[in-house]
Each structure stands twice: as C-alpha cells, then as structure tokens.
C-alpha cells in the first residue's frame, strides 16, 4: 500500500510573504488529518496547494492514482487533474455558496458530478441524488428546491452530498463548520464523523476549532506563520502539547 498523498517540501510564497513553508507529510488511505492554527497561519494556503488549486512555489504533492500509482498533481495534465477533482477528490468550502450552484436545484447540485463523469440516465442520477440527500439528512422532498431556500447547515450538508456522490477517496475541507451556529455545528460534525468512518474516507480538515479537530481528525498538524510547528496523533498533540505555540493554543480554550 502507498500513501494516498505524499507531500514534500511544499512552499507557497505570496511575493516575499510566506503562505506556507516547507511542509512535508504523508496521508494514508482512510486517514484524517487536521490542520490547526490561528488565522493567517497558512492553513488555507496549504489546503489549496494540496488540492491542486494553488501552484506551490516549491515542493511536490504526489497523489496515488488508481491507474498509475503516485503522480505529481502539478505535473499531470489539466484534464486528468480535473477528472481527479471530480471523481477521487472532494472539496468542501467553508462558505457553501462557493461550492454549490445556487441557481439550480438541490438534486442537480448533487447530480452534477455524476453527469460530469458521464452519467446520462436521468432516473438513475435522480435516484442517487435522492439517496445522498437522505444520507446527509436532507428531506427527499426538497430535491427540486433551490439551495437559496436552505439554512446554513443544510447548505453545508448539501455541499457534502455533492462531493461524496462520486465516492471520492480524499476530501479536503476548509473550516467546514465555520459559519454555523453551535447546535448546527454539532449535528454537522456528527454527520461528518459518521460519513468519514463509514466510507473509509481520507480527509484533510482545516479548522481553527480544536474541538472539531479532536472529534474528526486522527492526526494533527499545528501551523504557525506558514510553518508546521508540531504534528502527531490528535489526542497526543492536544493532551501533551510540546511546542510553546501549541501549548498556548490548547491553554487558550477550555477543554478541546
């Protein structure tokens, strides 16, 4: 077995400002990596570089493709990268509006990835959309409603369904519970935890919320000023933090 993602020396500069610097790690199938750190620490930059949306200044990201094994995601051709992004990968944006088509129905939002990979049977596409709406706890009755009429939590769940419908192996999430009320967050977290476990998904989850990290991530990377200052098993990093910055982060919340 190969790591799903092999990251080495990944650096992204914005002019002479550091986005993220010299990040290396491996992610294995089914592994859930949390990236934590304060605002501006480079979490989103790193996630974008990892998910083929932002070309790094230096370093490499290898993805273990089903056909040819590990391939540099920035060296592969655009068609292949796009195909990967809509089959093997999912991207859940903090703001669901960035990841959804607000002008088309919930069903079409979920069905789009199926159509994009060649599904051409309306009845089957619809049945799968319906099935996925239920899996994310959205009433099947709402399949033809526009997302505009959905609450924030529902929008986020819809975005998740839209991503998971093609059975990706790897999902990237940037602050998936970010803009939500606490009670809505809890439900979404529970759903994410279950889906990730049941589907054996590998995931990289960016969050500034250590409780979210504790609940979802197997491993943590703590970032500060673009660099990874500490990594390890999630509970170990949170219960026995070593780096001064991690200790500060942990001590500034009540009980992560």
């Amino acid at each position, binding site marked *: 077995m190969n790591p799903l993602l092999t990251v080495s020396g990944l650096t992204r500069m914005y002019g002479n400002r550091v986005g993220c610097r010299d990040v290396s790690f491996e992610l*294995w199938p089914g*592994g859930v990596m949390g990236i934590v750190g304060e605002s501006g620490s480079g979490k989103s930059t790193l996630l974008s570089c990892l998910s083929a949306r932002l070309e790094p200044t230096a370093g490499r990201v290898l993805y273990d493709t089903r056909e040819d094994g590990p391939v540099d995601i920035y060296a592969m051709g655009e068609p292949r990268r796009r195909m990967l992004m809509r089959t093997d990968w999912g991207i859940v944006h903090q703001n669901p509006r960035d990841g959804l088509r607000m002008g088309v129905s919930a069903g079409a939002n979920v069905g789009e990835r199926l159509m994009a990979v060649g599904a051409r049977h309306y009845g089957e596409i619809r049945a799968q959309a319906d099935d996925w709406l239920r899996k994310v706890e959205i009433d099947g009755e709402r399949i033809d409603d526009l997302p505009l009429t959905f609450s924030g939590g529902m929008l986020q769940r819809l975005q998740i369904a839209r991503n998971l419908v093609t059975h990706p192996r790897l999902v990237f999430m940037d602050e998936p519970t970010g803009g939500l009320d606490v009670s809505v967050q*809890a*439900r979404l*977290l*529970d759903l994410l*935890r279950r889906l990730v476990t049941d589907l054996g998904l590998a995931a990289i989850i960016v969050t500034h919320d250590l409780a979210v990290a504790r*609940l979802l991530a*197997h*491993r943590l990377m703590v970032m500060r000023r673009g660099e990874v200052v500490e*990594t*390890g*098993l999630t*509970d*170990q990093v949170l*219960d*026995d933090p*070593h*780096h*001064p910055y991690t*200790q*500060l982060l942990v*001590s500034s919340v009540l009980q992560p």
Partner: protein
Amino acid sequence: MTDQIRVDSLSKTYVLHTQGGIEIPVFADAALSVASGECVTLHGPSGAGKSTLLRCLYGNCKPDSGAIHVSHGEGTVDIASAPPRVVMEVRRRTLGYVSQFLRAIPRVPALDVVAEPLRALGVPVETAQARAGELLARLRIPERLWSLAPATFSGGEQQRVNIARGFAARHPILLLDEPTASLDARNRAVVIELIAEAKAAGTALVGVFHDDEVREAVSTRVHTMQG
C-alpha cells in the same frame, strides 16, 4: 511467558512554556514489564506519574526518551517512536484504555459508544451491540439509557459506559486509570469480576486503583512509583 509490554528507561518531563518554561520531571529511567494474564497495578502518591505512565503506554503522552515495546500481532511496536498511523492501528487491535473520564462524543448513543471498538475491528453491528448491551447490563446501566448519548449521564454512569467500552473488544492489553473512582460497591465488584475474567483470558492489564480493596483484589503485582 512473553511480555506484552516492556518499558525501557522511559523518561518524561513536562515543560510548561506558557508558564516561563517551568519543568516538571515526572519519571526518569522508568522500567516495567507486563506479561499476558497479569494485572500490574501502579501505586504511589498523587502526582507520582501513574496517569502519565499509562498515557505514555497508550501513546497519548510523548516521552522524552526510552522505549515502550508492545507486542502487536506477530511483532512488537515501540509506541514511543511509532508514527501516528501505527499507534492508531495498535490501539485498534491491541490496546484498550479506560481513561479517568469519558470523553463523550456528541449525539452518539451509549450502546454505540461501547460497541464502537468492536465495529472498528469489523465485527458486525448486531454482534457488537449484543456484546455492548451485555456489558452495559452487567454494569447496571438501565436499558432505557442505552439509546441516549452519555453527555447527560451522571459521572458514575459515564464512567461505567467508559469501562464497558474498554472491555468490549477484549484487547490483548488493557490500561485502566482509576476506573472505580466514582463507583458504588456493587459496581466495583463487577469491575473486579471483569478484570478477573480478562486475566483468565490472557489479557495483560496495567491499572491504577485508588482504593486498596480493589487493588488487592485484582493485582498480580504492584509497581511502586515515588514521584
């Protein structure tokens, strides 16, 4: 008999960077071996480092030096240096841990909290829930609570759910940190029974017990820590 756990010259010092870099040395050059069928109890005053040692064994605490060899499947793994992925796998198949307090996962019913370690081993849901129910019943958690998330349970109830979860998967190694602290005599007796059964089945146990009665009942050997 082969050791299930062998700790070699393990040292741990907490460094509190947020408090001017204060150093709290917990233990140095600690050694410990535990064979299968044994229950070694850690004994010593509060602050002696009993919980820290257990947490090191579980990979929850990172020692400064030394090794923690745990037999896992056909081989052994050094928990102190193994990558997270390996530690997770050791926890799934080999290491059980009953912490002092249950860390409740929101919205997950007690029955599933207990069945989860079995599910992680691929045991079918019915079988896993049957075993979970059996343990919860033995520990006197009323059946009407099984479908509720433990977040709202009393401290004692939560601790019993935690114990049931720890015993559910019959891991070859089980770590117990004051599991009986908030239990009444009848439930303490159940825990003593569960430990005896585990020993008989060949489990290697390491435990901390605050009351002498339980310690004396379960202990095959006492490991004293001075702090």
